[in-house]
């Protein structure tokens, strides 16, 4: 293996490790925007092109975030006429700093979520599944399930809160037993 290849291998490892935090970061800056995944993927492409600029030993996540932020700005520029809601630069800066420092617990949380989902009623699980698989709108689902959109929103809110507290409890009990 040439030195270049080994460097690329390490780069890919770092890029892979940062995938979910990167997506969470982009999503935090583009809340409710379905294009967030595309923007994160474009950021990946840019990171790959600019891989030679990364200084090994420095904070990869912070570097990746700064590139992602530029992609967000770029995306917004393309969407200028659409004038979506966006946070102030100060708040965005705070988000970048805090998320870059946050521990990456997504994998553990995902595993906890799977356990928590088992305790939900089938119809609640179906609702979540529907909402997060993006198969059709909430209104279509409401019609099919014979419920109001407003009612579904309230249920979704409650389910998210229940899941978050269940996930946190599981993580805490794991920490305690570890």
């Amino acid at each position: 293996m040439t030195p270049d290849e080994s460097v690329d291998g390490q780069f890919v490892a770092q890029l892979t490790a940062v995938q979910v935090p990167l997506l969470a970061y982009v999503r935090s800056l583009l809340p409710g925007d379905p294009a967030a995944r595309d923007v994160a993927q474009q950021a990946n492409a840019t990171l790959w092109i600019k891989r030679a600029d990364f200084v090994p030993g420095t904070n990869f996540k912070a570097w990746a975030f700064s590139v992602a932020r530029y992609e967000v700005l770029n995306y917004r520029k393309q969407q200028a006429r659409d004038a979506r809601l966006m946070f102030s630069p100060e708040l965005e800066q705070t988000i970048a700093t805090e998320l870059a420092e946050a521990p990456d617990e997504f994998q553990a949380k995902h595993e906890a979520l799977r356990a928590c989902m088992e305790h939900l009623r089938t119809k609640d699980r179906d609702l979540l599944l529907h909402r997060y698989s993006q198969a059709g709108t909430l209104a279509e689902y409401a019609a099919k399930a014979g419920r109001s959109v407003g009612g579904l929103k309230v249920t979704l809110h409650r389910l998210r809160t229940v899941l978050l507290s269940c996930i946190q409890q599981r993580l805490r009990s794991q920490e305690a037993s570890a």
Partner: protein
Amino acid sequence: MTPLERQQLIDALLDGAISEADFIRLEAELTIDPVARQEYYERVGLSLILENEAARLISTGEVASPAKANSGRPRASWRVAFLGMSAVAAALLLALLWRGMMGTPGDEPVEASGSQINASAEPKEEFASGFAVISGQADAVWEDGRARAVGSLVPPGEFHLRSGVVQLELFSGVVLVVEGQTQMTIHSPMEVAVVRGKVRARVPEPAQGFRVRTSTGQVVDLGTEFAVSAGDDETEVHVIDGQIDWHLPDRPARRLGAGEAIRRDKTGNENVFPSRADAFVGTEDLRSQLDLQQDHRLQQWTRRSEASRHDPRLVAYYQMSSKGLDDRLLSNLASGAGEKASSGAIVAGSPAADRWGRAGSAMNLSPAGSRIRVSVPGEHRSISLICWVRINSLDRWYNSLFLTDGHEQGEPHWQIMDDGRLFFSVKKRDVFDREKGEKDKHIYYSPVFWTSALSGQWLMLATVYDIDARRVTHYLNGEVLSEESIPEEYLVEIVRIGSASSGNGDQPKWDAPHFAVRNFNGNLDEFRLYSAALTGDEIRSLYTDGKP
């Protein structure tokens, strides 16, 4: 705001269903309250996990009870396993993971199998593309009519290049040169399918095994370079360097070496003949074609730049040149104005390549204390400042683009903040009462335009101070970054400059040490000062004419 209300607003925001008024309330809360932000991060994270989980359940068909098959394999272990792998294997693995994390089925057990690509690790047909970026292009016209910048992702699915040439870099390191008309699909960093058209592939050693499929057969690379021309009636494969295997269904592979080509028509006739490298555009050819285009642009720019010198509004126009750098003096090229600026004196700057790649035609302003000293006489109303810069990093709190000596009433300051915002001000008053909330000037900031991602790229920055329209406009590469009205209280109708520096600040006279050093870390190609407000169209054409 109660915690419950706050959580509901966050959910509404993440659902894309929040009113503007609620958004502003929530933003205020998030700005001041770390607890609120924590809740926000948690709910963003939850939505991602739920999306991945929903995708996983749908793909496995087990909507009722989530499987536990893979729960004993913590991700940390396979992350470490990456480190010993070759680039290709890692890229492939990345591709697999990517697919998992980007919303389609995740959590498949992924084995790190050393540097060999085995059949089971081979990507499947339904693979999302987007594993290639455009690394060069000449006159490219795409089927959908959209222009795609160098550095952008190749569109997913089958794409159709109508005409021109594009160079694609796959994440495996394979470089493809594609000539229009070509219709093809990138299935993975290791596999593409060409419906029709011409594609030349340069395959680096770690990407051996890269394959190109056509309607008649497929080429598997055994090292270096080959080209494929696929049509409705026949397919040709030319081996330019190294070896390939030519695979047909139900037949043993046929090996071809450098200098050999094979043609197969739709009736199944095959013949071997000498390969012709010159029939396909290679990376070198594309490079020289691009160089030619750039030469043409440079000539065009030189003519337009000559013509622009006679503009009576142009007070100062400095172009770095090797002669100027030798003499430590830059002549002011502006020739139309009645009262124009002095020549520029070079302090400590060193020669660097300019935005056209010409050595010694830009100035490196990174050395400590480096600057260009100028003197601009007279009084001005509106002004426009324009420069081409290549920023290495924003090391200082303030990074000077153009600063007057001292900071007297009526003097402008133009710089870049360490967070990547442009800063422009004209001093309104020397005496003011901070206690009463008075300030000496109003600062017009642009949004953040620079991050380290732009490091090393040439950019055209411009700021227009327009008295008649009562407006300050910042531009990046000819596009408006931001516009702001000049507050009545801070309107300065007479701008004075006098002695000033580009690339650095004056000796510190101020009360805080952070004012002391404003050394700009980067290169400067050219600088213009107009004693007038240029229109958005004028700024845009300065950019389109001047971009390399």
